[in-house]
């Protein structure tokens, strides 16, 4: 079979050019790429907003959110008013070993208690530690990025966060 010179040699020319261009590898962990702001890394909980409505737990396709809560009476806000009943969280765990990172829980929460954060470096040597309890979920809160502007042509956003 006659070998036409250009085919193989042309390929070698391309690999030679690429070799001179340098590597694109990001040398993790010495250099780290910053994921985009919307990147779904971990879920942060803002406990004050949570009312244990269970919507996130029900919406989760994997049943990985464990919620326990109880009701307490709080004194009336004004003079002569009735005491209010508030829902307080006892337990809010997300099992990241099961979590699919789909974001349905963050989306359905009507009280803006759950947020996405692009943090991804929380791997653990044993699976049980992947169950983040409510304190740990609250610790992620400071990593939640600001709401970023949308592209040209997007409809104006009515609420601050959806």
């Amino acid at each position, binding site marked *: 079979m006659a070998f036409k010179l250009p085919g193989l040699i042309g390929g070698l020319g391309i690999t030679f050019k*690429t070799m001179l261009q340098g590597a694109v590898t990001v040398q993790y962990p010495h250099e780290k790429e910053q994921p*985009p*702001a919307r990147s779904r890394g971990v879920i942060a909980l803002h406990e004050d907003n949570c009312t244990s409505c269970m919507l996130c737990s029900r919406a989760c*396709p994997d049943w990985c959110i464990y919620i326990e809560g109880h009701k307490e009476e709080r004194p009336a806000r004004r003079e002569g008013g009735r005491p209010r009943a508030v829902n307080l969280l006892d337990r809010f765990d997300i099992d990241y070993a099961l979590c699919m990172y789909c974001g349905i829980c963050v989306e359905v929460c009507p009280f803006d208690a759950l947020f996405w954060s692009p943090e991804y470096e929380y791997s653990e040597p044993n699976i049980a530690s992947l169950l983040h309890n409510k304190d740990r979920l609250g610790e992620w809160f400071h990593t939640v990025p600001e709401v970023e502007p949308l592209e040209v042509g997007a409809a104006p956003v009515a609420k601050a966060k959806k």
Partner: protein
Amino acid sequence: MSSTEQPVTPTNDSPDFKAVPDFEVAPGMQRHLADARVNVELDTGDMIINLGPQHPATHGTLRLVVRLDGERVIAADPVIGYMHRGYEKLTEFRTYPQVTTLINRIDWLSSFANEVPFVHAAEQLMEIEAPPRAQYIRTALTELSRIATFLLFLGEMGLQVGALTPAFYGFRDREHVLNLIESATGGRFHPNFNRIGGLKDDLPWGWIAETRNVMKIVLDACDVFEDLVLGNEIFQARTRSVGIIPGELGASYGVSGSNLRASGVDWDLRRDGAPYLAYPELDFEVFTHPDGDSFARYWVRLQETRESARMVLQLLDKMPSGPIMAKVARIIKVPAGESWVETENPLGQMGYYVVSKGGTGPFRVKIRSASFSNVSILPWMLRGVYVPDVVTILASLYFILGDIDR
């Protein structure tokens, strides 16, 4: 045969290996058919070996039980199901947003494209339409996922025939596309971005400009693959006339997508099927190749990658402004009915037959996945083929195990 009887795994005597229906074969293809030649000098016999399920050439957990005469395959039986996750059973007990999340994972390399037909089917049943901007963004993201998966194909097919370099180039250029998808949707591989009625969010600031840059990179990458791989004589020797699928036979097996177009059948659901997304407003070319061999499948996918990049540029130029979500209730209940939507996914024709009874979740979803039918032609195609050519054929058919097994 009653439903309680179960034949044993195919052995030398089992009728299963002879059960492949025979067809009129074109004269040029005679050399691909096997006669089981027994070498009279050495007393050789047939060997039954497993290719897989852990095998670098089988793209995941596909097991091929092959009966070999030396290096030539006499019969092959793909055993699938190692990744069977029971999607159709799962969808019976999930709400529509949850199903949308799950079906991302059917074909995980182009996962945005998996959500589109399902959401479209639900929207058809609800008789709503996503607003034009949502349709354009959906189309752009579908084409981006097509580019992402094809860049991987262009790389790894070179890898399967022995060229290591294209694999690196494929992954390197694919990173840009995945970064684009991540900046828009939040997930590189599983965007979970479609909602019934539109999309979850609008695009972030600067996305359109960034996409234009990335499309230039993609077009350059296609030129590189053409020079590096397609023109390479060794690649051509490995792939020309290997694994020929006659067009009509392929269609009767259900082979679809680039595989069928590489056999000369001019059928593309973006142009020929029921109109969906923004494709009716786009100007694009559909590529076919008359040969039907592995080289043709590589060639067609390379051209389609270029064409997808051009389509994305067209979409960005024409992107309308406006809302990205139609008016839908918070808790979505889809009215009773049945709906069938099929789309041209990167792997082929993907379709969802959604049966709804008016609840918050579907009653039955039949997922027609492309790779299932693409792989079902293997028992026919692998007869008389040498073992290294088996690897080339598997690479050129380009199936994803999640798509076969669901």
